[in-house]
């Protein structure tokens, strides 16, 4: 009987272990969600800027962009639809993070046929004062 009791106690402990281990994970979730939300917010601003064909707006999100070249590129466009999904935070620090995402762009040019491209990009985000920006693309 005591042996059977001991087994039950052991089984209970084993069953409760995940809960115990899960407690700290649950405590980290809000932080991950925050980073993820930050990344999504930056990419949302970036895609909106691209879609508006406004090079200066893109520069606000990605200060390192070659604005003149981008303006030339936008001049050839009638419209640009941009969708960004599969956003994943690959790593993060206090004021930076690496983010992977899938970017789908559909170009309707002023001359030529509509065309779509989908690329997976890895970019570096950096917190600049209170605002997160795109520092650059790794690929």
């Amino acid at each position, binding site marked *: 009987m005591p042996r059977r009791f001991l087994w039950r106690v052991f089984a209970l402990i084993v069953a409760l272990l995940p809960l115990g281990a899960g407690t700290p994970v649950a405590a980290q979730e809000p932080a991950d969600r925050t980073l993820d939300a930050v990344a999504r917010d930056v990419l949302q601003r970036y895609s909106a800027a*691209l879609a508006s064909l406004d090079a200066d707006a893109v520069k606000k999100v990605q200060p390192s962009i070659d604005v003149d070249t981008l303006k030339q590129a936008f001049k*050839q466009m009638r419209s640009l639809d941009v969708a960004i999904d599969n956003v994943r935070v690959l790593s993060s620090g206090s004021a930076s993070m690496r983010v992977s995402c899938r970017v789908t*762009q559909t170009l309707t040019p002023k*001359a*030529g046929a509509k065309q779509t491209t989908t690329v997976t990009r890895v970019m570096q985000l950096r917190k600049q004062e209170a605002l997160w920006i795109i520092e650059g693309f790794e690929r």
Partner: protein
Amino acid sequence: MDHRRIRTLIVVWAGAVGFAASPAFAQGQTSLSSLLPDLILRDVTLPTPTTPGLSHSAHFSPFGSDDPDNPEVAIVESVNKLIGDQLASFPIGSSTGGFTYTFDPGLGTFRRGSSSFGPAFAERATTNGRHRFSAGFNYQHVSYSSIEGSNLGDGSIDFYLHHEDCCSAGSGAVAPPFFGVNQTPDGTNLSPFFEGDVIQAALSMRITSDTFALFGNYGVTNRLDVGIAVPIVRVSLDAKVLATIIRLSTSSNPLIHTFVAGDPTATQKTFARSGSATGLGDVLLRSKYRVADFPGGGVAVGLDLRLPTGDESNLLGGSTQGKITLIGSTGQSRLAEHVNASYTLSRKNGTTVPGTAIVSTGDFPDEIGYAGGAEFVASPRLTVLGDIVGRTLRKAGRLDMMDKTFQYELPGPKVLPPHMSQFLEFQPRPGNLNLVFGTIGAKYNPRGNLLVTASLLMPLTDGGLKSRLSPVVGIDFAF
């Protein structure tokens, strides 16, 4: 790429290449490269006498009298070579791929290779982009107006066929038509006297060519394009000579040389030959590698190989050439510029008039080429363009109009020095042939990735075979 478009493209290409691969077919009496020599050097004959006697029938015909050393042979040969060289190597429009948008990772979005649709007869440094394909065709009609500054159509190009040295003064029958001569040459056209006559052959000629060139370009990498151009060519020659007997030495015996036996007034006769040939021209294999970029432009190197798939004897091609081109272009603003410099190395080959050693098409010359021009982006859908295209055909040979002196004797006692007459005639000389063309045109994008090209090619120099204003139209599609 849309499957229907691919199928349509394959069908069009297969049809065109199948047609082009069939042997050239010619209409007319002889091959086109022999037409002019045959007309001037063989056809101009007098009638064969109906009664026994000395026949002067072929005495003015170097081919008929088997006289390849006749100086007229070299003159006609040079004219024919100049025509053949230029017909077989007339420039066809470039296939610059129109326009392409590529994803620029640095920019994060699409970027057009150039703001313009590119030049018409030159190359620019932009490439199609990796795995991008473009295809289309050009059609051009060329008719020729003059050669070395002399009008081809008005009979102002004269050839002077002197009488063969057929005979010597001797002890034959004295009465016409024998005039007491032996039918053995004596090394001079002064004796017997009738060898001093000359036939003036005034040439009028209509030369046209129509070229339908199919081309395709594929981007192997972002920097390397390979392409092919398959020209289907039709060449048409329509030539006639008005032959006039110039009786320098027989004016007192007009029945010796006449175009109608027994009619002393028959001093003129027209001889004509015409023909056309259609078939595959020389296929071009093209490649272009972009070696350097700068905003809106770059520098590229082009390497073309021209295969001798055209029928040389019918002036459709037949030249094996390798061409290297250095290309520079810009294209960021509404005004794009381009410059090309090239050198073409030709393998030596040539054909002869059947049954003779007369060269009908000569060795194709090496060539130095250059081009420069600009494109103006009038609107995103319309580019207006202009080019200067230059070609130097090295050692192609030139023709100068010069006085040519003929000596003759009159019947009766000899006089010293002999009588002389001078006539203006082409004289061949060695030299390079410089040709410069100007082009103006436009490229318009009516829908999708379709590009319609129309341009005019105009000669700016009088040297060689000069073309009239030549229209070029084309369609280009980027997939």
